[in-house]
């Protein structure tokens, strides 16, 4: 059977500034990020023939292609489920390029969630299901929906607020090393965390990701082509999309076991096609819209056993030098929340050796997309 293993590589990454408010429109930000990524790769925009994005992206590939001066485009796709689709963009481009449907693929995300509207404030465009079962009862926001799973998780397995603080702190510490991060000059203390205002108990302000204006992009080509690009290739080693049996989206309260989310499905596929195991992962970029998604994902992706995700975070495990350095640019909690695309670009920087919080000799990186929703994940290697 044909395999995607190491058949393609990420050869360019680009991004705009991250801020609560940027003046440029979303489309302009998208074009800036895409052109920056192509420049980073050393590939002329006229060579781009594939695009991949994910839903809640307002700029479509037609707009990008004509603005940046792409050539004939022979592959384009858009993956559903918001933040669950971040890594899937690279999955789709890798598959298209490996099967000869295209040669130069661009994935991007542009968003103005810092200055723009919060999606949950829309009362007119309610999804008919499952919103009819949740929103009338004031379970309105992603923080409420994940807070519900978090409370149950804490109850069943003894996960504590200190465990969640360990996650928030690791991300903040990395952001404090990254001049591009929104929280670069804003250290976090345990006292700040423990006295912070609630958003949805048991989740406080620091358990929630940032609200950001910004855009990012990356460029995928074949492994052959990658060797001629400006930077060392970062190979797409193993990929997965994941919609578990009987899954119900972010309000996953109706499966037999709601605490085993899409990460578990993604992990089974990811490790099945990989040459290495969780113990071989040097650094991880795990989707962190909420702190509790990290211990849940650590279990799902096999870094620890069921119910052990909270305990895993102790003893500096997620810090540089720890068992699994996490979200080394600051992640969604402390660098920028751009639906997880910054995690992909940081994974590439780690394997190039150019992160602002570099893990020495990092050669393997796990990158994941939104947990709780139908998701996707990548194993990258240098």
């Amino acid at each position: 059977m044909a395999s995607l293993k190491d058949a393609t590589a990420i050869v360019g990454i680009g991004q705009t500034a991250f801020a609560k408010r940027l003046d440029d429109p979303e489309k302009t930000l998208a074009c800036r990020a895409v052109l920056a990524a192509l420049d980073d790769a050393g590939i002329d925009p006229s060579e781009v023939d594939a695009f991949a994005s994910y839903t809640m992206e307002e700029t479509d590939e037609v707009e990008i292609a004509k603005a940046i001066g792409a050539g004939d485009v022979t592959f384009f796709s858009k993956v559903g489920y918001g933040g669950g689709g971040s890594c899937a963009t690279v999955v789709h481009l890798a598959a298209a390029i490996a099967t000869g449907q295209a040669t130069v693929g661009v994935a991007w995300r542009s968003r103005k969630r810092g200055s723009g509207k919060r999606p949950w404030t829309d009362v007119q465009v309610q999804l008919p299901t499952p919103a009819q079962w949740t929103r009338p009862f004031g379970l309105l926001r992603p923080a409420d929906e994940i807070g519900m799973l978090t409370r149950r998780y804490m109850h069943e397995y003894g996960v504590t607020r200190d465990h969640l603080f360990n996650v928030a702190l690791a991300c903040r510490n990395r952001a404090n090393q990254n001049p591009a991060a929104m929280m670069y000059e804003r250290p976090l203390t345990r006292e700040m965390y423990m006295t912070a205002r609630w958003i949805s108990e048991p989740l406080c302000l620091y358990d929630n990701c940032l609200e950001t204006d910004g855009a990012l992009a990356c460029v995928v080509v074949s492994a052959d082509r990658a060797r001629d690009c400006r930077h060392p290739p970062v190979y797409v080693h193993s990929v997965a999309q994941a919609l578990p049996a009987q899954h119900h989206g972010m309000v996953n309260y109706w499966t037999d076991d709601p605490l085993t989310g899409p990460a578990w499905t993604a992990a089974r596929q990811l490790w099945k096609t990989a040459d290495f195991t969780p113990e071989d992962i040097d650094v991880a970029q795990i989707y962190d819209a909420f702190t509790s998604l990290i211990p849940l994902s650590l279990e799902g992706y096999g870094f620890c056993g069921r119910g052990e995700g909270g305990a895993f975070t102790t003893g500096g495990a997620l810090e540089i030098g720890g068992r699994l350095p996490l979200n080394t640019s600051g992640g969604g909690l402390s660098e920028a929340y751009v639906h997880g695309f910054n995690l992909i670009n940081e994974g590439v920087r780690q394997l190039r050796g150019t992160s602002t919080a570099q893990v020495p000799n990092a050669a393997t990186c796990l990158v994941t997309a939104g947990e709780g929703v139908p998701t996707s994940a990548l194993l990258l290697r240098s």
Partner: protein
Amino acid sequence: MSPIMKATTDNGLLLPVHDQDGAPFWEFAARGELRVQACAACGRLRFPPRPCCPHCRSFASDWRSMSGRGRIWSYVVPHPPLLPGYAAQAPYNAVVVELVEDPRIRLVGNVVTAPDAPLNSLDPARLRIGAAVRVCFHTMAEDTTVPRWMLERP
């Protein structure tokens, strides 16, 4: 969903926007009945409702009456920023209740001190995972009744 269906109550609470699969649930609720879709072939309950049974793939279903008893599976206490109608009552509770008939059938709702009491009528310190609750019904607006929950031991 009818295009003229109202999205909110007069005080800004969201009304359930029914889809075809869910419509019977809300019709029974309007009559003060808690019913859950059940497969007419294999008998398994399923929620949320859907066109066919994921176990035996039968398209035949009926709506089975529930006792209205359950236990709190989890809960949150939302604080602002929230939609104005909810912010006015925050902090309040939102719960997931597992039904005694089948703990895998779980309904999102609110625990209140009386059927028509405000969302914040119960002291959140009274909430516990595992606490026994019993259904009651609250009319949110004309034609719209929602199940709510009261502690068995108030």
